[in-house]
């Protein structure tokens, strides 16, 4: 039997592919959140992390293309399954009642599409960096003097606009809700759900979704409320004391110098 036929043509195979691609994307968002939670540490932490990822170069592009391919398969199959499901009942009932389907399961397509729109905006906002002017994407230097993007300040600047912040919170809320059905469902689709432990699975998934949402909302909330502050003196508009042990060399003048050096190199 041809494996491609099983995974992309048979009804159960398509669901298994949805489950596997969904799980990979879930793994990515958990990793993404863990990376982002570094915003609560010293700015160097998340800036060095972002610099490390960017420095992977071709490796980073391999990961990005892999994730993009997985996302495309997930969305493409979802669309295909939806069309098949609509075609399986050409004429509907006058007043069908819902017996036990959860709200999360009934709104998978709606939450999925909104999350997809969000992903596009999010990539334009923080990865392609075109939704805002250059002042929203500052640079800084690490403690060892490496010039890097100031991701720490960029995130906080990004959440200064309440409309954008609300959109972010809404999108991760809907994603958590999407996962509420998706995570349970993937166990069913690959056949790992039984009555023996389905209640436990349900509770674990609920806890994971709530924690995932809170983790994301915490970052946006902390940035909006000023709990996490911009520490780049050039962006914040104040000058550090020269004898400060935390920032070391990184006062506004040093960052400006490294910026100039960088632009000199480019020209």
């Amino acid at each position, binding site marked *: *039997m041809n*494996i491609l036929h*099983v995974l992309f043509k*048979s*009804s*159960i*195979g*398509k*669901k*298994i592919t949805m489950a596997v691609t969904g799980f990979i994307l879930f793994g990515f968002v958990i990793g993404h959140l863990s990376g982002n939670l570094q915003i609560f540490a010293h700015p160097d932490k998340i800036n060095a992390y972002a610099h490390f990822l960017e420095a992977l170069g071709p490796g980073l592009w391999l990961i990005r293309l892999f994730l993009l391919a997985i996302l495309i398969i997930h969305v493409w199959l979802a669309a295909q*399954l939806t069309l*098949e*499901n609509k*075609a*399986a*009942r*050409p*004429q*509907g*009932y*006058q*007043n*069908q*009642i*819902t*017996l*036990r*389907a*959860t709200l999360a*399961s*009934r709104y*998978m397509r709606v939450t999925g599409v909104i999350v997809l729109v969000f992903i596009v905006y999010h990539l334009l906002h923080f990865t392609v960096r075109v939704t805002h002017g250059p002042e929203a994407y500052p640079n800084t230097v690490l403690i060892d003097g490496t010039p890097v993007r100031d991701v720490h300040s960029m995130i906080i600047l990004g959440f200064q606009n309440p409309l954008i912040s609300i959109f972010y919170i809404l999108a991760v809320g809907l994603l958590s809700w999407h996962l509420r*059905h998706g995570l*349970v*469902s993937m*166990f*069913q*689709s*690959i*056949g*790992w*759900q*039984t*009555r023996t432990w*389905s209640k436990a699975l349900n509770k674990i998934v609920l806890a994971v979704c709530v924690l995932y949402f809170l983790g994301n909302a915490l970052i946006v909330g902390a940035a909006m409320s000023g709990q996490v502050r911009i520490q780049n003196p050039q962006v914040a508009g104040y000058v550090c004391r020269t004898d400060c042990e935390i920032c070391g060399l990184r006062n506004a003048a040093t960052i400006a110098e490294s910026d100039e050096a960088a632009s000199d190199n480019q020209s």
Partner: protein
Amino acid sequence: MKVTLRVWRQKDGNSQGKFEEYAAEGLNPNMSFLEMLDVVNEDLIEKGEEPIAFAYDCREGICGTCSCMINGKPHGPENGATTCQTYMRSFKDGDVIVVEPFRAKAFPVQKDLVTDRAAFDSIMQAGGYITSRAGSCQDANAIPISKEIADLAMDAAACIGCGACVAACKNSSAMLFVSAKAGQLNLLPQGQPEKDSRVVNMVSAMDEAGFGNCTNQYECSAACPKLISEEFISKMNRDYLSASVKGLFSAKAL
């Protein structure tokens, strides 16, 4: 008691159907839903009109012939009951009851409330059997089967093939039916020789018949007159995955 019926009337598979209203009067609350339809039909016959066509056979909940979507739920408002086991006492005096046929591309309407559910037969022919010697039965305990497995297989075997799962599923998926039929045999030692080919063939027969895909909402299980668990769908997914993986590497005879 009396009720008003809004019934789907359709001359045959090629005609357009529509709802028509009928007053059902002088009913006994202990009449079954089908007996109530009998009363309405006698009235219609006396008036010289075409009686409402509906499918039935045993009228005791074991044959799976009666169908009908009653007020938006297959087999009516009760849990774990077929249309013939639904009694008028489940409705209130003066209720308006909407009666439709099961709707799915794979279950074309033949007349009024009667649908052609032969798609289930083609799925059964694809793998709903075991190979065993013909002749007299062997000793009852010749093949040991644990109580747990026997009970679980019995739960699956309760399926009467009525199609309520397809009717209730918003995708018209037949996963609960196929999983009950394949699961019952796959659980038992007698079903082992064809275990892998059974699940693969039955699933592909199901796909070919034009049923939808499972979205794991389990409306099927809630509507099932035999309350078959969605656990069997999980088992079928597991069996299908394992059969497919095994199929990739298994040795093939010339």
